[in-house]
């Protein structure tokens, strides 16, 4: 490890602009002649659209255009890019989602019209004057009953409000395994609906240049090329080569900025019609009403154990709420990112999972930090914890006797995943130490003496990251490849520009990726610049989500660096008058083996651009691009242990200790990785204790602002004890696994298992997330 190479805890270079207020987020950008958009949104969850009167609004000051759905008929609807094949072999039902509603609105916040005016205030005033004639219909809100007989139908093309019923596993064989079980643990629970809430609201500025026919879209995007591809190929807004998408500094994403939303489609289309750049920035209320939500499952789950506590089989039935339409990757979340992880870290003999994806009159639901894997970890780890309590076993020991042993890798699970490597027991042991497990009973007794209830909860999660091998996901219905690109460009003076297809919106790529380049090419860290986010600058890339940037994007960087070294070897061999086979590369120097004849890579770069003494037939320049398609997912895993104390008088839950030991393989920058773990745990604690997107029976989001939706605040969460037990992945050149989602995947089960452990003593056997003081207090009263 060099001082600023792979493994070094380098403080981030991007920080300076952010701590001095010099970041450039989309809303900070203003274009000459810029106008402003305000959307007219449905206040009803389900209604026919009988007419939109824009006459009065159109006459108001500053208004340059008002458009409704019919005006944009030439523009294709928003699409879902992952086609699920249902249990009958039929494709999922994905009713069209026009960017501006046509004929009908299907959730509160569905866009009906857009007003474009010279100032934002004028646009807002005019939007308030647009008159919409709604025919209000009853709404479908509860996912558990959305597909019931006689239910109101939302889409003509989705009978029974069902997008698909999908299943994995051999039902008959699993049923048979349950017949022979010594013990069966059965649970029913919901995985609460969440709002991602990146602190920067979504925003975009669309600009059309008549002289060239070029469109530029500044956008809060995690994947600018994916936006460009879909907006070109499916919406038909502009051919790809005439559409530039720029995702500048982006203030958090957590999945919510992956998707193609109505607003960017409308603005890009309208920018040509009004002949001016158009800006839109979501107000937080709009974020709540239009950003894709996450989770929202209703699940029945069972675990069959033999007399020794070994897991024989698991049976799971889940209803997944898709909201009003299928969003960009929504269909994959409760299927291939969920059911395929139900083996967890265990050697469970067989698994059957059935998923019904239903439509409701709510905001579309799609990937949110973890995406399917938090839901899977919650199913597995709640079952295991409950099984331990029911059979009188120590929860750590029950896990250990069922872990996939360290010598069993590669390990095929019953749900089509092949785990590459891991050390599940090692991580558990380390976590037990970090959590001070041996002293827990004493702490519990101390709490009890003070009238408090103390509990401890485990979560031995696993996730599939490094999204994803293209052929594999293609065979499962993905409409895209999930490789990544990197371009390593030396300049004649020896410094390097790295162009990556990944996008950093908090992950610190500008630092971590520069560390990879510095390490692999032996150039000083300070002389490596990382460029991302602008489709006009970077090679086509798939962006950042699914903990893929290091495992896939980082591997592409290594591949591009390898190409640079190979070409450099030829240049050095020529200059040093040696055979190419005799040139070694290390620490930035090409050396003739066994001699002191050497040439630094900066000199090689200069020679490549000033090729006066140069190998015959070799192209000038030192500028290499690589595309890397992973061989498999990567499988970060670990054990998180949470300890809570509950005041039975108030129902308030306090996290007293939170210990996490994770296997992310090789760490590129431990400082950044720890930060990712902290942030993920924070969101997971939020899900477990605070957050809930609640709709009333009419489909109104009643937790639709920070006054109502409880975001974790600094005094809601503890300091976290974080440790690592890295087993390098053999499947990618960096040995990395991905760290961005682990905390959000592990924490809900760890916290809720601790809450259940604490409440068991007072007879409470079940409590749903979020475990708010009211819920906890009520459960204690009900059990008394």
């Amino acid at each position, binding site marked *: 490890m060099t001082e600023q190479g792979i493994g070094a805890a380098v403080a981030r270079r991007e920080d300076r602009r952010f*701590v001095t207020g010099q970041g450039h987020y989309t809303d900070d950008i203003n274009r000459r002649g810029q106008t402003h958009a305000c959307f007219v949104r449905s206040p009803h969850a389900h209604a026919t659209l009988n007419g939109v009167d824009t006459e009065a609004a159109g006459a108001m000051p500053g208004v340059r255009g008002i458009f409704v759905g019919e005006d944009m008929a030439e523009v294709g609807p928003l699409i879902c890019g992952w086609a699920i094949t249902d249990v009958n072999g039929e494709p999922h039902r994905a009713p069209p989602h026009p960017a501006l509603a046509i004929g009908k609105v299907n959730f509160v916040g569905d866009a009906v019209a857009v007003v474009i005016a010279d100032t934002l205030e004028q646009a807002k005033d005019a939007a308030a004057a647009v008159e919409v004639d709604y025919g209000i219909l009853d709404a479908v809100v509860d996912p558990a009953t959305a597909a019931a007989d006689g239910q109101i139908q939302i889409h003509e093309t989705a009978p029974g409000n069902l997008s698909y019923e999908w299943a994995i596993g051999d039902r008959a064989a699993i049923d048979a395994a349950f017949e022979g079980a010594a013990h069966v643990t059965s649970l029913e629970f919901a995985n609460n609906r969440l709002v991602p809430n990146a602190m920067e609201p979504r925003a975009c500025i669309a600009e059309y240049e008549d002289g060239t026919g070029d469109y530029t879209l500044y956008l809060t995007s995690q994947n600018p090329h994916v936006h460009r591809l879909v907006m070109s190929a499916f919406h038909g807004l502009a051919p790809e080569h005439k559409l530039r998408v720029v995702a500048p500094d982006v203030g958090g994403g957590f999945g919510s900025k992956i998707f193609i939303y109505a607003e960017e489609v409308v603005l890009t289309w309208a920018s040509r019609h009004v002949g001016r750049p158009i800006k839109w920035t979501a107000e937080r209320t709009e974020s709540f009403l239009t950003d894709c939500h996450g989770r929202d499952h209703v699940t029945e789950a069972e675990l069959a154990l033999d007399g020794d506590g070994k897991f024989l089989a698991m049976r799971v039935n889940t209803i997944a709420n898709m909201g009003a339409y299928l969003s960009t990757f929504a269909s994959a979340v409760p299927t291939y990112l969920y059911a395929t992880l139900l083996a967890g870290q265990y050697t469970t003999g067989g698994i059957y999972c059935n998923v019904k994806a239903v439509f409701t009159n709510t905001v579309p639901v799609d990937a949110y930090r973890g995406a399917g894997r938090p839901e899977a970890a919650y199913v597995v780890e709640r079952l295991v914890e409950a099984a331990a309590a029911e059979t009188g076993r120590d929860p750590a020991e029950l896990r250990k006797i069922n872990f996939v042993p360290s010598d069993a890798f590669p390990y095929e699970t019953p749900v089509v995943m092949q785990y590459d490597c891991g050390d599940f027991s090692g991580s558990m042991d380390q976590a037990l130490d970090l959590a001070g497990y041996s002293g827990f009973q004493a702490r519990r007794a101390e709490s009890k003496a003070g009238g408090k209830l103390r509990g401890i909860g485990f979560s031995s999660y696993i996730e599939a990251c490094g999204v994803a091998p293209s052929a594999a996901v293609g065979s499962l219905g993905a409409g895209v490849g999930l490789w990544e690109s990197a371009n390593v460009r030396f300049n004649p003076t020896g410094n390097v520009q790295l162009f990556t297809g990944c996008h950093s919106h908090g992950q610190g790529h500008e630092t971590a990726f520069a560390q990879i380049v510095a390490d692999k090419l032996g150039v000083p860290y300070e002389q490596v610049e990382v460029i991302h986010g602008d489709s006009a600058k970077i090679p086509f890339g798939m962006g950042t989500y699914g903990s893929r940037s290091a495992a896939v994007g980082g591997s592409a960087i290594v591949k591009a660096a390898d190409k640079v070294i190979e070409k450099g070897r030829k240049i050095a061999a020529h200059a040093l008058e040696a055979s190419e086979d005799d040139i070694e590369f290390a620490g930035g120097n090409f050396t003739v083996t066994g001699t002191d004849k050497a040439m630094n890579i900066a000199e090689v770069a200069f020679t490549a651009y000033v090729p006066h003494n140069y190998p015959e037939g070799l192209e000038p320049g030192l500028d290499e691009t690589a595309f890397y398609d992973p061989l498999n997912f990567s499988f970060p895993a670990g054990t998180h242990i949470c300890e809570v104390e509950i005041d039975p008088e108030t129902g308030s839950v306090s996290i007293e200790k939170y210990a996490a030991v994770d296997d992310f393989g090789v760490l590129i920058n431990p400082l950044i990785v720890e930060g990712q773990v902290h*942030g993920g745990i*924070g969101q997971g604690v939020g899900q477990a204790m605070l957050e809930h997107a609640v709709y009333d029976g009419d489909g109104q989001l009643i937790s639709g602002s920070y006054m109502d939706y409880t975001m974790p605040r600094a005094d809601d969460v503890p300091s976290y004890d974080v440790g690592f037990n890295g087993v390098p992945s053999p499947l990618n050149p960096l040995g990395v696994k991905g760290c961005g989602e682990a905390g959000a995947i592990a924490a809900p089960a760890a916290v809720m298992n601790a809450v259940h452990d604490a409440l068991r003593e007072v007879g409470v056997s079940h409590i749903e997330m979020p475990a708010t003081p009211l819920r906890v207090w009520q459960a204690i009263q009900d059990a008394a």
Partner: protein
Amino acid sequence: MTVSVSLTVNGEAVSADVESRTLLVQMLRENLGLTGTHVGCDTSQCGACVVHVNGDSVKACTLLAVQAEGADIKTIEGVADGDTLHPMQQAFHENHGLQCGFCTPGMIMSALDLVKNNPAPSEKEIREWLEGNLCRCTGYHNIVKSIDAGAAAMRG
């Protein structure tokens, strides 16, 4: 109705003609181009817009620009000493107290007001003080650590 507002921002006398409904944060961002002060919500909950008004931390979305007439405002752009980061900014950098950076200006402005009144805050006091600042990236762990380190550096 347009009104003229004059105030001092980061030591410079400035004035702008704004609509009477304009919020201080809008004036800072739109009229004065000081885009380091961010807008993360519409209910005065998130704290991304915290600035100092006459030395005290204030959410700039809770004041109309006209209410700030004559005030002495400091924004995140006025915190560093030329090229040298303020110790609190430096502490956020060294302790990885930020990820996406969007909440960071508000966090730093808020932290500076805490430390002005309580030079050696405990972890509990830091967490309670930050009740009005939301961060979605860090889980707060490293923000708390940064403020502790920044306060120590300011004590010298």
